[in-house]
């Protein structure tokens, strides 16, 4: 190729680069980590899994007793807490005001938006813990980006675990948390999941419920430019969940709700609860003989935002 052609190609690449870098942006201006889009600076999936298992082996897995056969689990996703967390505040207030809710709630990743925001999110977790309840979380891509896995780990200790919910009748539900913060479970977590589902599916659990950040299915453009699992991993997870009788998979990441059924497994993609946007919702999961869900609007844009809006509470 002539030098002139090389020069043309180089010019073309240089012109294209601001667009590509713009698409790659994942945080506030001036706080970009471009390298993270081609190679992780944070620990890999396998490393995070090993560290999580170390904690799990030492501390075991939680069993939570609920008062009724039917119970409500409050679930939020994509809070992206930065300089404000009004919607998380509403979520926490509503959850704590619902005295019949399960003593635990879930956050399906992207707790924070960029760096230095964990304390703002954890203030809400502290409120929940002070009331004698717990929040369980799975990491999202924003939670480990900017090399933040170590901070996430300091707060949450593990990103891959399960917990048992014990019902008054003695029946049990199993919740499994998977770490998909960088769009893959990795080799070790995938193997762990295969063995866990094989073992637990024989133990007579009433429901198997999985929650993870990255969503499996992309069937429309609502997910904007959020990437998800590679196709090989999508096939594998769909098969595993279907084969071992998982009832529902809770996912976030795209910020928009979607319900999809594949191999008799319900994939429920949740809305964001992030501030500053219209259509922010959290979800209440009603777990009984069947599993149902309700999306509850939050946010300053919603009419009646100042009221505590919980369907089961008389004001």
């Amino acid at each position, binding site marked *: 190729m002539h030098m002139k052609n090389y020069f043309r190609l180089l010019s073309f690449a240089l012109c294209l680069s601001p667009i590509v870098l713009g698409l790659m942006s994942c945080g506030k201006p001036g706080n970009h980590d471009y390298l*993270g889009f081609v190679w992780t600076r944070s620990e890999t999936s396998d490393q995070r899994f090993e560290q999580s298992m170390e904690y799990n082996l030492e501390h075991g897995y939680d069993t939570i007793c609920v008062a009724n056969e039917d119970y409500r689990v409050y679930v939020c996703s994509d809070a992206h807490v930065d300089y404000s967390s009004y919607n998380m505040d509403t979520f926490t207030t509503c959850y704590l005001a619902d005295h019949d809710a399960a003593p635990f709630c879930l956050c399906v990743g992207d707790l924070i938006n960029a760096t230095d925001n964990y304390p703002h999110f954890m203030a809400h977790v502290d409120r929940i813990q002070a009331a004698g309840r717990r929040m369980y979380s799975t990491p999202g891509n924003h939670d480990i980006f900017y090399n933040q896995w170590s901070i996430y780990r300091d707060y949450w200790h593990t990103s891959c675990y399960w917990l048992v919910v014990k019902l008054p009748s003695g029946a049990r539900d199993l919740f499994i948390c998977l770490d998909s913060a960088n769009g893959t479970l990795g080799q070790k977590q995938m193997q762990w999941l295969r063995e866990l589902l094989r073992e637990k599916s024989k133990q007579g659990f009433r429901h198997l419920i999985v929650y993870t950040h990255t969503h499996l299915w992309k069937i429309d453009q609502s997910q904007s430019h959020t990437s998800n699992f590679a196709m090989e991993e999508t096939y594998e997870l769909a098969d595993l969940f279907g084969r071992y009788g998982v009832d529902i998979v809770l996912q976030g990441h795209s910020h928009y709700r979607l319900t999809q059924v594949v191999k008799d497994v319900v994939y429920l993609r949740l809305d964001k609860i992030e501030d500053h946007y219209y259509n922010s919702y959290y979800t209440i999961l009603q777990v009984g003989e069947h599993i149902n869900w309700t999306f509850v609007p939050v946010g300053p844009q919603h009419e009646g935002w100042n009221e505590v809006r919980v369907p089961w509470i008389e004001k």
Partner: protein
Amino acid sequence: MILTFIRMKKITWILCLLAIGTGCWAQSSSDSRYRLSLQGEVGHNPTWGYYSGALLHAHMPVVKNVDILADIELLSSNVYTAEITFRPKFSLPVGHLYMDATALGTIVARNQLMDIVGSLSLGYQMDYVNVQVGWFYRTIAETNRSWDSESGYVSDPFNLLYRLQINARPERERWNVYVGLGNVTPTQYERMWAPMFWLGGYYDLRPQSELSSNSLPAHFRLLAEVMVKPAGFFHLDASLYNLQTRFGIAYTF
């Protein structure tokens, strides 16, 4: 919903008409010889572990201005793919324009799923650059689903298809090295935010000076390619997901 369907149908109609129109208008290609290639594959990803396989590719200029490309891939991970592409093309002052209409089916036997893809795309091939942009439709279905049922499958009606390859030398040279990126390869259609990157090359066992003679003798070409697919590219914390190498031989006649 109905409106969306009507709009989709319009888009599909327009693209089909474009494909047929391009075919009618197409001009002859300089590359008018049949080529058959067989490549061995070795790869690794966290889901399948190590795997190997074979890829059979046929390039068939069936009439003067239209090529048909076909691929069959068999992988030891119990995944089998067949693809066929109808490619009308016509010459421009620089390079040539082509339009691909592709159907691809993958039987993911290990997971009792099948992945069916239909795509339409427009490409522009020059000596050093080959760029392709288009749309593809995907349906993932359970292999044992009842075909009169509306459940058991997931459809993704719109996906962007893109592919860019840069060659170090024009294709007529005896050897070449190329780099590329895109969300499609002959046997893989990834989602639009999951690009793959590849580096490859070929070497003709006979010099081009002999091949350009009137006799156009049959000849062999050695092929090699390395492809990487990251997980979490764009908006996630990226890491290497799949590494695959291909090597083989092509026979032109």
